């Protein structure tokens, strides 16, 4: 794994910084000179996980690339809330084109840099789960297949939030969205559908694939730094809770993400050339209820009566992840 845990330092490497920790072991986010790539004044909702995840990732990429970074942004919440005309929250070279073509635009930027022999500049493309797993999927697969020199960051909030919480290929089973209402015999998103994009990316055999979460800043930054330093197509899938779409308390954004990791529902791992090379162990394992109960999109599993079958089905997904990725060590 890219991250080394430090023990016995009060909070070790679990908090962002800590005066007792060696400077080099602190996060980019704890530094007074962090770039704040996504600056204040953006219009994301209170407690937005995507705004948080994007600043975490891009600040880390900025530091790893010595501030030589170009970001391509797909359409989606992140693009909309950060760049309402005529304002921009971005303090880096940043470009937006369409919903579905961010990987292709990034491939073009990378090609242009190669033509200009600018190997000092890094290219990232970023988008939400809609732009990544659904609308831009073809372009993304092509970018992977050609091994273009781009780091693609997917901020996964598990539905089309910007347009009003419609289901995406990344929406988890049983979740309520506005297109998968909690009504009928099988309320919420049908189970057995959707895509696991990190696995699909791995199947392309690209140099680097990783998952990360806003609940684990040290791990996220280490993965972004590792990926930024590499060549070829790289993919990081970042879990970013959405208080609006998930019906969680804005103050609970990090907590919700943490419960996803600790329950095993969102495994943290990294892979090189299609092979898993590391995983982050669960610290204090929790049942999936601890995650589900924080979000009203799963309320129909508990109210008016507990839907034992559905909860058991979600638990079995978590258990399978724990086995597949060896999350308990």
């Amino acid at each position, binding site marked *: 794994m890219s991250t080394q845990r430090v023990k016995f330092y009060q909070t070790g490497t679990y908090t962002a910084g800590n005066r007792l920790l060696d400077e080099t072991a602190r996060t980019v986010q704890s530094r007074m000179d962090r770039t704040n790539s996504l600056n204040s004044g953006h219009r994301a909702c209170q407690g937005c996980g995507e705004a948080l995840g994007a600043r975490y990732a891009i600040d880390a990429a900025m530091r790893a690339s010595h501030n030589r970074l170009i970001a391509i942004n797909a359409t989606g919440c992140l693009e909309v809330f950060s760049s309402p005309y*005529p304002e921009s929250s971005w303090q880096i070279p940043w470009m937006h084109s369409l919903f579905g073509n961010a990987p292709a635009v990034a491939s073009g930027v990378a090609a242009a840099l190669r033509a200009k022999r600018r190997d000092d500049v890094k290219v990232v493309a970023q988008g939400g789960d809609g732009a990544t797993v659904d609308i831009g999927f073809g372009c993304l697969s092509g970018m992977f297949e050609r091994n273009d020199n781009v780091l693609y960051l997917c901020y996964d909030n598990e539905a089309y939030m910007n347009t009003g919480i419609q289901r995406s290929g990344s929406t988890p089973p049983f979740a309520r969205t506005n297109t998968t209402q909690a009504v009928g015999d099988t309320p919420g998103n049908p189970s057995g559908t959707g895509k696991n994009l990190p696995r699909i990316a791995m199947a392309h055999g690209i140099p680097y694939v990783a998952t990360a979460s806003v609940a684990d800043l040290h791990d996220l930054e280490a993965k972004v730094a590792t990926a930024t330093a590499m060549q070829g197509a790289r993919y990081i899938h970042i879990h970013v809770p959405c208080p609006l779409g998930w019906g969680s308390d804005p103050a609970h954004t990090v907590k919700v993400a943490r419960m996803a990791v600790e329950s095993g529902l969102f495994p943290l791992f990294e892979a090189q050339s299609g092979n898993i090379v590391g995983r982050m162990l669960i610290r204090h394992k929790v049942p999936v209820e601890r995650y589900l109960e924080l979000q009203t999109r799963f309320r129909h599993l508990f109210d008016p009566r507990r839907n034992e079958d559905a909860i058991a089905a979600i638990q079995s997904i978590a258990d399978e992840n724990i086995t597949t990725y060896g999350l308990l060590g």
Partner: protein
Amino acid sequence: MGRKPFAITLDPNSSLANHTGNWRTMKPIYVDRLPPCNHACPAGENIQAWLYQAEEGASEEAWRRLVEDNPMPAIHGRVCYHPCESACSRGQLDEAVSIRAVERFLGDLAIKEGWRVLCAPSTGKKVLIVGAGPSGLSAAYHLTRMGHTVTIYEAADKVGGMMRYGIPSYRLPREIVDAEVGRLEAMDVMIRLNTRVEDLEATIKEEGVHATFLAVGAHLARRIEIPGYDAKRLLDAATFLQSMAGASPIKLGRRVAVYGGGNTAIDVARTAERLGAEPVIIYRRDETHAPAFKEELAEARDEGVRFQWLRSIAKADDAKLTLEVMELDQQGRPKPTGRFETIEADTLVLALGQKADTAFLRNLSGIRVLDDGTIEVDGHMMTGHPGLFAGGDMVPGEQSVSMATGHGKQAARHIDAYLRGTEYVKPPSHPLATFDRLNPWYYTDAEQSKPPTLVLARRRESFEEMVGGLDADTALLEARRCLSCGNCFECDNCYAVCPDNAVIKLGPGSRFAINYDYCKGCGLCAEECPCGAIDMVREMK
């Protein structure tokens, strides 16, 4: 701007123009809370503050912070019953921070390094202190540091009170007492040894002092009548323990019965065990109702001390004690059952508590002696006699070295105010930092570092110190187990987790501020603060 592109009418701008702070209904504010350890400390130490220094390995700074409140850390690091550790929030995570062990480390290091404290310029005011136990010495230390001139009268031939004449040396080696007391003596405090105050009013006149602090402790043993018992076989705990400090310890028989369930009873029994006797503790109530500290009970049991719970001594006949079996009523009070049994005992030691000898106060007006022999004091630790203060075991409250030391500090503050013609008002405390305010996920799992202890066989036969000290590395790790409950320790979490960059990092030691122009009031910073140092409060209209 010159000509704009087609359909573009506005200049490009930063989103900083958009003050998202006006979305807010709740706002985060940084708070400081009273840590549970500080709250529980009888000596009034700011434990979290000196641990904070110790965490950085700044031992001298930590010690200096510590002795602002307590002049005897090496002693307290050994004998204090550490209510701080019982209150420590870490106890609900894994194990409490071993605060006492770190305190002892700092105290011992100060002795080794010869660190001294500085005093304020002289105020010209004189204070008389009667009794050189923990309370008197603590008051003398604080008053001297404030610039007052202190004279102590002590009846014994050495200073230290119960620390020298009560606590067994396997818990508190006498060279430690000498070292810490020596540091106080070096502060130009006049100490008259072997000088019992017989007539306080005359002494006050003679010394020409402006205020007096009484801290004579409680030395008179409580006795009970035991019919038929040979007086030669009967001892009281205070006399016995005091004899251990001198050249000729009292000889005990082989079978020693100790009557009482408090810490003194335990001290006597464990001392007897070390002298080769077979001690048994007899107490009227059961183990859960015994006032002795549980840790002490367990250690005594390990060393071979036996217990006869729920027994009272009914009568004695030569070396035989007749015990009556007791039972507890609903309120936990012992009731006789009429069933009897006998045990053999060569010596019976009464450890039934001690009272202050307050005869020398008789002539003074305004003094009120309570039923249990203690002296009544007001909220300023002053007796009914103006300018006469009292503390330690001779006033109502828990009798312990730490409590007495705390009294000494409090009395010094009130005496100082009295001398300046003002009144000391305690600054209001922060509300308590409770466990439910913490976000414990962030703390590393780390078990308590255990100090080395003497092997059992050695404990049972020698007065060698039973518990060892921590080395510097271990003390550092132990200090770093502190959760910093309720007070920012600059972990940078709030600064990191704000999705709006609305937390401003002010730099090392300066903590953080909120940029309310952009703070949307989501509450993530408060939620993810490990130590509960951020409150969310309603935004005013």
